[in-house]
């Protein structure tokens, strides 16, 4: 297991996966407040000449909280796509390229192989999301004013991170099922957006991973009472997808064209 973890860390470092993901999420964290402070007002003023500062403020949520919610939305909409396509080869490419053949012959087991991928990239995504959310909080606070405490921000960063962990496990699962990186990326986006839509339409968000994201967006001082349950369900989903991935891999044949 130790060497499987080392392998994934090397993969992340040497193929710039960590860098791409960290920079993209950080970019979203910084661009959201800037958009809110500079670009959107400028755009509105150009489009609607003669608009007053008050109407503008009414139309745009020009606060720290507003920018932070904007950032969360960006991570959900754009970040999902970036993560899905940056990491879509994580398992699918390995199956396609037959790079698992020699590890299998030398005694590597699927639980360790897949587990290390989830551990390394899951940990990285949680960490990145906490850091990026904090930076977003600080930057938006500097541009506007600080109106949220740091506690809810940390909590939101964590919840967002666990939502990304769910995304990651879906990515690995689809990779094992269809063995094509791009298709796995697309299906993962569909899964993440799908659960979100289903969750809000049927009002079952708190039973789905998308509930984490919604809660993360509130930055409320006191979290919803159902949040622990949503977290537990999400982790359940992650384990379920992990198990299904293993089951699928166990049934595959290797080194065939």
């Amino acid at each position, binding site marked *: 297991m130790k*060497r499987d973890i*080392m*392998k994934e860390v090397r993969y992340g470092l*040497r193929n710039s996966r960590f860098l791409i993901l960290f920079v993209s999420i950080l970019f979203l964290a910084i661009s959201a407040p800037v958009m809110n402070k500079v670009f959107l007002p400028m755009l509105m003023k150009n489009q609607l000449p003669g608009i007053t500062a008050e109407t503008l403020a009414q139309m745009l949520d020009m606060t720290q909280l507003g920018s932070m919610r904007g950032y969360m939305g960006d991570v959900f909409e754009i970040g999902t796509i970036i993560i899905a396509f940056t990491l879509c080869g994580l398992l699918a490419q390995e199956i396609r390229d037959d790079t698992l053949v020699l590890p*299998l012959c*030398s005694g590597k087991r699927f639980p360790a192989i897949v587990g290390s991928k989830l551990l390394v990239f899951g940990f990285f995504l949680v960490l990145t999301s906490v850091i990026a959310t904090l930076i977003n909080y600080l930057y938006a606070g500097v541009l506007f004013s600080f109106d949220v405490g740091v506690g809810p921000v940390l909590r939101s960063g964590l919840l967002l991170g666990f939502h990304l962990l769910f995304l990651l496990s879906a990515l690995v699962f689809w990779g094992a099922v269809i063995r094509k990186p791009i298709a796995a990326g697309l299906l993962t986006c569909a899964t993440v957006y799908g659960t979100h839509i289903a969750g809000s339409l049927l009002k079952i968000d708190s039973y789905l991973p998308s509930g984490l994201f919604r809660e993360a967006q509130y930055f409320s001082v006191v979290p919803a009472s159902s949040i622990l349950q949503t977290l537990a369900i999400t982790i359940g989903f992650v384990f379920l997808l992990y198990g299904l991935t293993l089951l699928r891999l166990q049934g595959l044949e290797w080194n065939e064209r």
Partner: protein
Amino acid sequence: MIRVTNLHKKFNTYHALKGINMTVKKGEIYGFIGRNGAGKSTTMNILAGLSRPTEGQCIVNGKDVSKLRHPSELAIGYLPEDPKFYAWMTARETLDYLGNSGDNPMTKEAINDILDWVSLNKDADRRVGGYSRGMRQRLGIATALIKDPELLILDEPSSALDPEGRSDVLRLITELKQMGKTILFSTHILSDVERVCDTVGIIVDGRLTMQRPLAKVKREMIVPVYDIVLEEPPNPWLLEALRKHPKISHLSSKETVLSVTTSEPEHFSLELMTFFASHRMEVSSFSRRKPDLEDIFLKEVNGK
């Protein structure tokens, strides 16, 4: 060490293996030959526990391959036809990664020794993505050796290697045999088979058409061939008469050139000459040659 009975493999509609029966005995070197697409790699991949037989039984190292839970249970060394590595790892890291799973972890010294064996020490800290085909092949051979297995299944171990590398591989194979290991390897280089193998198996179109000790092949099948060049093309009835000749076991003809083999070499050339003389055929050349494994192979593959 390996016993294969009635092995079939179908890929969707394509029937790649059509009932292979083969036996590899402990301590022997088995040369597995056959033309492109005959089914060598398919067979070896099944023997390595990576893909499953459609029908039939394969016992490898005492284990039934269709009952495996994990390929590594076979405890063999396997070199795939085209070994795939992580391009972003160095050779040393690759061996460290592959060598340290399961019970016997590999020491740094052991990795160095293996790298020396396959002459990769100089390049051991370069990324495998920058390796040439032959260097990857060497690394593949190294990975097959890391667990010091009793049985090795090597799919074209000498392909893509330079002459030195090829003779290194053959030397390695004979050394391994001296250590008591069993080796099954496929190749297209028949002189390699002649140099090191104890047994040859020829696979044609998904069937094992021949499996014999090399010594026996040499004794029984490597019989002289007479090449006769006639002045003008022979008549069909003349060819027919030759075919019916009691001493002629095989005849092939191409325009004015005839190739004849016999099962009774005694006075055979004399009788052949008499035959042509009595039919008033002018002979412009008459020569005798010893065939090699290649002729046997071609004969086998072309269906006699």
